[in-house]
């Protein structure tokens, strides 16, 4: 198919791409396969079974996992909701606020959580909470996640907003819509896909976070990542592989979802008038 003199084609790049995908997927696929291993040993193959999946839900660790999953999900939903709301307002202020003093400072502040290494954010937050005497627990995790998720939600939202011409809002205001009505009836529906992908990204980031959560979770509170980490510290157990596979599937579902939202966004690109 590819002509040998095709100017775009370089020999070997296809092989490197395949190698890249093998590297990215091999560990995940092997863990998936071993999660169906019937044997209690993680080394020997004892046939296919769902034994360890059953164990995740009913085994000795199941209560811990269920609680951790509940914590993870509820924190992720709340953190993503709050940070998406804050990020949407910020994106409108930045991109539709005209030129103003402190605009680049505002942008730097919004991107700060991405620029600061996670472990530094973790240390700083721990020091802050312990200095003001804030009790470590679910609430401290939630606050830290909200901060951390804002720039991740901000990026897709502001990208979408930048692609929307301001004439839609001007038209709405020209047609007697107040600023709130302009947002509610015109801007938000057009920004929709951006807001949704911002929310999903924030949700995943919160769900995946280990380092910050590990620092400020306080005693007794676990999220799924910290629970898995704690368990892996004592060696990889088969039920962890089953749990990991479940989480993996969950992530893949979310990517697929966001992929289709993106597709729909492409079908309705930010209208270029």
């Amino acid at each position, binding site marked *: 198919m590819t002509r040998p003199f095709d*100017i775009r084609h370089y020999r070997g790049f296809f092989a490197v791409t395949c190698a890249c995908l093998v590297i990215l997927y091999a560990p995940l696929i092997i863990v998936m396969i071993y999660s169906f291993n019937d044997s209690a040993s993680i*080394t020997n193959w004892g046939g296919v079974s769902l034994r360890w999946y059953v164990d995740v839900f009913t085994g000795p660790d199941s209560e811990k996992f269920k609680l951790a999953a509940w914590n993870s999900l509820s924190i992720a939903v709340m953190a993503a909701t709050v940070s998406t709301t804050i990020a949407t307002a910020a994106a409108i202020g930045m991109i*539709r606020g005209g030129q103003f003093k402190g605009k680049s400072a505002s942008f730097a502040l919004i991107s700060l*959580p991405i620029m600061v*290494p996670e*472990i*530094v954010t973790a240390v700083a937050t721990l*020091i802050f909470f312990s200095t003001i005497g804030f009790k470590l627990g679910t609430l401290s995790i939630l606050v830290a996640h909200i901060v951390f998720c804002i720039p991740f939600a901000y990026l897709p939202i502001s990208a979408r907003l930048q692609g929307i011409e301001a004439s839609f809002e001007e038209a709405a205001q020209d047609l007697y819509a107040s600023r709130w009505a302009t947002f509610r009836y015109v801007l938000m529906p057009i920004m929709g896909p951006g807001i949704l992908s911002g929310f999903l990204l924030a949700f995943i980031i919160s769900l*995946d976070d280990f380092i910050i959560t590990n620092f400020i979770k306080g005693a007794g509170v676990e999220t799924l990542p910290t629970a898995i980490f704690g368990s892996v510290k004592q060696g990889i157990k088969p039920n962890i592989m089953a749990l990991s596979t479940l989480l993996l599937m969950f992530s*893949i579902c979310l990517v697929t979802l966001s992929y289709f939202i993106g597709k729909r966004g492409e079908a309705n690109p930010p209208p270029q008038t």
Partner: protein
Amino acid sequence: MAAGTGSGKTISATFSPVRHWLLMPSWLVIGFFLLIPVVLMLIYSFLTKEFRGGVIWDFSLAAYDQFIFDRGLFGDDPPRIEWAYISIFLRSIGQAMGATVLCLLIGFPTAYFIATRPAKTRAIWLFLVTIPYWVNLLIRTVSMKFLIRDNGPLNEAMLGLGLIDAPLQLINTNFAVQLGLFYSYLPFMVLPIYASVERYNFAFSEAAADLYAPKWTILRRIVLPIVKPGIIAGCILVFVPSLGAFLAPDLLGGAKTFMIGSLIEEQFKGNAGNWPFGAAASMILLSMVLIVLMFYARAQSRDQT
């Protein structure tokens, strides 16, 4: 026809009267819960340590001093240069650079290959590269640990194929950490490079070929300089998190290959740590990252002018 100001560039200002109200929540939340904490961390790095974790509010340079000098158990020996912490930082930089180079070597051809696929298959390739980006980093690192452990599938397979006679010691080595960092951040390299190659106009390549440039020369002299912003962005996205990585060194490197992330974490674990020292290490890490980002910002603004 440029609608609007006539000065060429229109800055939309439909919400400018309320912009401060719109920006206020982000200013407050990030300012209060991240900016102030970082400043507090800076202050902590100049305080005296409390032996059960936490600090005593006395000014001290001990945390920074401890990085460079060894003053003996009771702090009254003549200072000798202490290489332990310096070498941890140097090793972290080396590991991060190594991971960046590896990611670039694999990531560039991959990104280029995907960007030159026809639109339909391109989406599928891109989707395949994106999935690991969204999968929990902890799970990916644990999977790597499972794969390369002493009697793990990789060693078994190599034994089975007769490539090696005895299991290779991979886990708990510098190599394992390098592999883990590379594996963790590879998608971060592919995606920005892909984005810039996708925007690349292949008419440039055709023009170069028309002007007698051989293919690999075209890649080196035309494509690479034009997609450079994407490559630099990818390198930063790999280098910065690698530098402060915690999971890969901790799970794959074991105790032997200490990196900055683990060093910092240790200072805050339980009651054994040294908070000012951890804060100082964090400050040094943060400064290094900010220097890298500053260079990046400068390079970017230079490219634009």
